[in-house]
């Protein structure tokens, strides 16, 4: 998802008899759905994993502005421009809510930024794909925000209070994102044949990367069990991916578009669509930094951070001077 493959520092979950009294009490609170708050005792691994997960989620929101920001100046109408700008601004807000949640765990904002820029912390693989046409703005809102919603809605019940509260705010804002994307797709498919073709092409390019957002298949995700015991992950990757496919296929049919998967078929028995897995080697390559846009995305973030330094310092210097003046008066 926005946080894919988060390392919990362990493989598998330890039994109740292997936990210290503190750990057992902590796990009991989680099992009782009592929220863990920043000042509460928590296992070091829980803290570390959450910093990684929330940090990765925050970075995804921030880096995720880039593929769409790319189209703000080129949106076809003033209204679409205003909508896209509002959406991108929301994503900045999502990043900020999440950074604040991560900071309550004892890491600073600048540390988080540095870890993103050094490549030590990741962001979602999806944002390393290019947005080549206006129809991509439709596909991104519809599929990428749609996949994000699938993951974020259950996370509103996650065990860490600040994370859960950030998710509540974020979910309130997300459904506009998905709907504006779908609305772009509806316009494109009712346009000229070339425009409809553009919409199909966008779906073709974003379908499998969107499926990758849910992370590796359950059998390959070694950290899932611990994360689920801690309730920082509420569903397995395959569960959410299936749910996404089931929900999205009829939406594509409504648009008159074809999902780029010859093996996609409704399975009467399971009540699910059977579908093809994305190319997991490609997924690993993108996570390692070798996707089509990794260098460009990270480069843009670093440039913004370094280019803004004089400005951040200037405001800080002004604030300091004004405080001194007030103290002297």
């Amino acid at each position: 998802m926005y946080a894919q493959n988060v390392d919990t520092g362990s493989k598998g979950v330890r039994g109740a008899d292997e936990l210290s009294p503190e750990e057992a009490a902590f796990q009991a609170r989680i099992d009782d759905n009592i929220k863990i708050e920043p000042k509460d005792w928590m296992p070091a691994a829980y803290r570390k994993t959450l910093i990684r997960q929330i940090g990765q989620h925050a970075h995804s929101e921030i880096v995720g502005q880039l593929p769409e920001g790319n189209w703000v100046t080129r949106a076809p109408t003033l209204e679409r421009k205003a909508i896209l700008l509002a959406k991108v601004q929301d994503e900045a807000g999502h990043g900020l809510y999440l950074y604040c949640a991560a900071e309550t765990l004892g890491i600073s904002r600048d540390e988080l930024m540095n870890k993103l820029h050094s490549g030590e912390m990741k962001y979602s693989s999806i944002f390393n794909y290019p947005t080549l046409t206006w129809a991509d703005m439709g596909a991104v809102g519809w599929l990428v925000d749609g996949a994000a919603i699938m993951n974020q809605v259950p996370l509103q019940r996650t065990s860490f209070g600040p994370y859960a509260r950030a998710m509540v705010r974020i979910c309130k804002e997300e459904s506009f994102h998905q709907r504006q994307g779908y609305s772009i797709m509806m316009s494109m498919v009712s346009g000229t044949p070339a425009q409809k073709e553009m919409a199909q092409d966008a779906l073709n390019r974003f379908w499998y990367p969107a499926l990758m957002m849910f992370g590796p298949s359950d059998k390959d995700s070694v950290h899932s069990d611990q994360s689920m015991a801690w309730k920082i992950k509420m569903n397995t990757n395959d569960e959410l991916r299936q749910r996404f496919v089931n929900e999205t296929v009829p939406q594509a049919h409504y648009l008159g578009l074809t999902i780029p998967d010859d093996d996609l078929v409704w399975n009467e028995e399971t009540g699910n669509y059977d579908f093809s897995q994305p190319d997991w080697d490609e997924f690993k390559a993108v996570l390692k930094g070798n996707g089509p846009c990794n260098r460009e995305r990270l480069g843009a973030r670093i440039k913004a951070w370094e280019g803004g330094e004089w400005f951040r310092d200037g405001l800080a210097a002004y604030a300091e001077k004004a405080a001194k003046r007030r103290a002297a008066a």
Partner: protein
Amino acid sequence: MANEWPLWEIFIRGQHGLNHRHVGSLHAPDAEMAINNARDVYTRRKEGVSIWVARSTEITASTPSDKGPMFDPAEDKIYRHPTFYNIPDEVGNM
């Protein structure tokens, strides 16, 4: 980092005359910028008509381990609630 902007806690009063409510936090160099940033981060959809900001370091919080002694004493004082008293129906609404 030496010149990292301080953290501010943000409180917002909604449209309907309720109390200011804590909505989250953000970084800003000073109070004025904290209010400007809070407007952009926390009121993009008319969530508020008034903003308070306070330096996070200025907030003193109760400690989680004091939760028992602090809040448990209220538990057995059910006579503080109106439903504790049985008023006959004949008396009418009270």
